């Protein structure tokens, strides 16, 4: 096996260009598709009319659909996909486990407890905070417990961290399931949709915080890409390369917990993206984090809006939870890619 097909500098730049075009194209389709089809030209004109100083939009109904409903939903989908994919890539390196994702370190089960508490017992049960705030608090609590339990001599040995995450995950899930036994059928329906995730309730109000978290988080992680390559060689090697392994692990995981916690709080537990997109990225560009992180970012930003388009067009007028689509569409694609690349590659 030679290096991955898009590992060379020129081909990698080409891939980045293609992925950026892909994000824009999928975004335009995502805004256009729905009960009413709106052409990309109309979408552009509506977006242009919201640029300060430009003339206001002419068709009010179109403006409402594009600007108030579909655009925030699309932008949120892009941000969520990007954040989950980048986080998954980093978690897989820190726990040195290809199964690493936000579920594995307790984030999603923790958020589940907060969300289900609010759905079943009402926000009064958690001090009057919103569902998103409760989910975020649950995620941080579970993550803190995982990280406290996984610690050994100032560092986080990968196997120990994974075991801690799995144990905490089951503990929090047990509580979530218990709460569901108290729920009414309507509440159970809401729990199901939360568990499988959705971006259908998106408003512009959801965007700024996530935008800041994703941009700052991704920037720092990308700047740390060379050190992540060092960490991939294990604790002893990373230390010999001058990394303060314990501190670096703490910084990485705290940042990833914040990113995924914020995402999950807003859209619920969307699986598969954080697990599979980084693997797709590695198949395309190799293991070097300087390429894996940007590729995962753009790959997630394409994949999630795409899954959302499917979620609302497969069975109109009802919408499927997005988690069903991400798994049902993504897993076969991943299997196909694994099979074809494996055959061509021969070795390993």
């Amino acid at each position, binding site marked *: *096996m*030679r*290096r991955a097909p898009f*590992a060379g500098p020129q081909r990698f730049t080409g891939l980045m260009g293609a992925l950026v075009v892909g994000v824009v194209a999928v975004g335009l389709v995502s805004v256009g598709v729905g009960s009413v089809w709106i052409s990309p030209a109309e979408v552009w004109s509506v977006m242009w009319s919201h640029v300060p100083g430009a003339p206001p939009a002419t068709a009010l109904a179109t403006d409402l659909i594009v600007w108030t409903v579909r655009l925030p939903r699309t932008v949120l989908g892009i941000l969520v996909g990007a954040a989950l994919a980048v986080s998954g890539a980093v978690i897989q390196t820190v726990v*040195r486990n290809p199964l690493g994702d936000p579920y594995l370190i307790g984030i999603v089960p923790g958020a589940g407890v907060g969300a289900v508490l609010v759905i079943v017992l009402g926000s009064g049960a958690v001090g009057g905070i919103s569902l998103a705030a409760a989910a975020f608090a649950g995620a941080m609590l579970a993550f803190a417990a995982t990280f406290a339990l996984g610690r050994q001599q100032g560092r986080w040995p990968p196997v120990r961290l994974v075991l801690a995450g799995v144990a905490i995950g089951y503990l929090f899930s047990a509580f979530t399931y218990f709460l569901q036994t108290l729920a009414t059928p309507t509440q159970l329906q809401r729990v199901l949709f939360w568990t499988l995730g959705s971006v259908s309730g998106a408003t512009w109000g959801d965007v700024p915080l996530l935008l800041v978290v994703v941009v700052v988080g991704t920037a720092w992680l990308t*700047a*740390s890409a*060379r*050190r992540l*390559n*060092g960490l*991939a*060689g*294990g*604790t*002893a*090697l990373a*230390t*010999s*390369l*001058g*990394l*303060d392994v314990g501190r670096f692990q703490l910084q990485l995981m705290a940042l990833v917990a914040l990113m995924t916690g914020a995402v999950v709080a807003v859209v619920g537990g969307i699986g598969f993206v954080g697990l599979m997109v980084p693997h797709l990225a*590695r198949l395309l560009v*190799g*293991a*070097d984090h300087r390429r894996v992180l940007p590729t995962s970012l753009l790959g997630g930003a394409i994949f999630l809006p795409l899954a959302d388009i499917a979620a609302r067009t497969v069975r109109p007028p009802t919408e499927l939870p997005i988690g069903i689509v991400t798994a049902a569409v993504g897993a076969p694609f991943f299997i196909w890619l694994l099979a074809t690349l494996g055959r061509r590659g021969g*070795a*390993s």
Partner: protein
Amino acid sequence: MRLHARGVSVVLQGVGIVRSASLVAEAGTMVGVIGPNGSGKTTLLKTLYRALRPADGHVDVDGEDLWTLTPRESARRTAVMLQDDTSEFEFTVQETVETGRVPHQRLLGRPTATDQAAVTVALETAGVAHLANRVLATLSGGERQRVFLARALAQHTPIVVLDEPTNHLDVSAQIDLLELLRSLPVTVIAALHDLNLAAAYCDVLYVMSGGRVVAHGPVDDVLTPSTIAQVYGVTAHCTTNPLTGRRAVSFGARVPSQKAAL
């Protein structure tokens, strides 16, 4: 650069792995650490590159305590070549060797011309330049060892620590590697299993047994039938290798009614 470990002890989960071990590596010399499996060689080495903090004792590098240095400062003085590690196999050779430049790089900023030159020279010196774009997983064990050596060389440190560097290597590759290490203007500390290789290339040997340094000094003083019998529990006959003029060891049977670990 001189490295001096003074009375180093390491306790892992209540068990003393290294007990009050001292070791001096004078600048530019090659020091071998020998001893049976489980005698504490790897653990002692870990204290030399800051991967383990000793429960007791100090490691001085060029007269400064290793633990008063920052991790980055330490990594600019001591590089390490570890035993084969399976985690990085998706990386290419080039990418693996580039990680050797991490201690010289800022968080932001691109690799400098110095970084690139160091990587190129290291790839050529270790004889793996032709493999630069290959994925690590597809190389033989011996090729991988040379890649890990190239990373240590790219780190540009005055001290290089190696944990059983000749594992997986055939005779010619073992000789190439040790000749290469000898030719470098650096201080080398290597854990070695092959006593004849250790005798042929090291200036000074440290013999470990049960976590202690039980003998040390010039090769001819240390590699004696009585030390080998005491530490390995094997009878030995020492001669001079007619080709190299260095000490050579031939092994006989186990020493009757004696346990290997003292």
